[in-house]
């Protein structure tokens, strides 16, 4: 069991938080997505989503591009190379741990 606890503590904390994990999953599946799509998919409030995006940006996991579409502001997010790798690694770690738990139960 201590090994598993160690494995859980090794999880990437920045991604492990459920809302940020959902954001990462959306961006992993696409080249980029705008703020509105992320808002709809994650079900977060605007403020919460902004805060999570800023944290992921600070961790160099995604880039935020602010621009205009016509007269309206338009924010687009995309995963960086590091972000893509971090998400893949997280998934691998998570799946292997989940498998271990399954085998034992």
């Amino acid at each position, binding site marked *: 069991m201590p090994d598993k606890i160690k494995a*859980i503590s090794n999880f990437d904390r920045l991604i492990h938080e459920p809302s940020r994990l959902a954001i990462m999953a959306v961006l992993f599946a696409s*080249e980029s*997505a705008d703020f509105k*799509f992320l808002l709809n998919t994650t079900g977060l409030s605007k403020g919460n989503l902004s805060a999570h995006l800023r944290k992921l940006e600070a961790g160099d996991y995604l880039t935020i591009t602010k621009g205009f579409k016509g007269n309206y502001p338009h924010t687009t997010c995309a995963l960086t190379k590091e972000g893509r790798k971090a998400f893949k690694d997280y*998934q691998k770690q998570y799946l292997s741990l989940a498998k271990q738990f399954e085998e034992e139960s």
Partner: protein
Amino acid sequence: MFEQVDTKKIILKTKQYEFADGLRDIQLGIALILMGAVWFGLMYQPSWLMFMIQLGRDYGRWATIVAFLLLFSLPVVATAGMQRIMESVRRRWLWRETGMVKSSRILVPSHINILAVFIFIVALILGLRFQSFLKTGDFYLMSLIMVVVGWSFGVSLIGLGINLKVWRYVIMGVIGGVASTALIFYQSSLTGAGLLSFLGWGLILLTSGLIVLKRVWPEIREEGHAG
């Protein structure tokens, strides 16, 4: 263990979003129909070719090369133009309330693409090998190429459908693939075989796209009013 986020489901839903409104089918369908038109124009109307050659005589061979490039780039330019139109339609109406996504470039898994190429090569070799057993016409080889290209395209569509769980692509891949086989019996005209192939696939995709668009349009309008 800890709070679960179904990342697989989120990834799948995000990838499916690109195909949810049918515009991608319409775009590909129109591109294929245009390719068919270019094919038909070149093959059926040799006067086009004469015109190109005449251009070369009048203005030098570069004029012919530029004219050919323009002609062959027509479907590409049209596809790029449609991409812009599609983005604009989505931004203004279809995705106005749900947000924009730029889809990933790799939607068909690489092993499916390898399988499609493998089918192309094997079917071509077998087709040539058994040529003597079949009653073949003058355009057997070209008809055979059209058939195996059809199969390969069908396999790619099926792969895309299975990968994204968008079952209409599986149905289209099977229908188009089977229908492509009929081209082997159409050896009287190379122009006809090519045209049938382009038009067939184009119409299948266009019809599918229009059906999907018609189905989702009322939901989108409702969302728009609610939003």
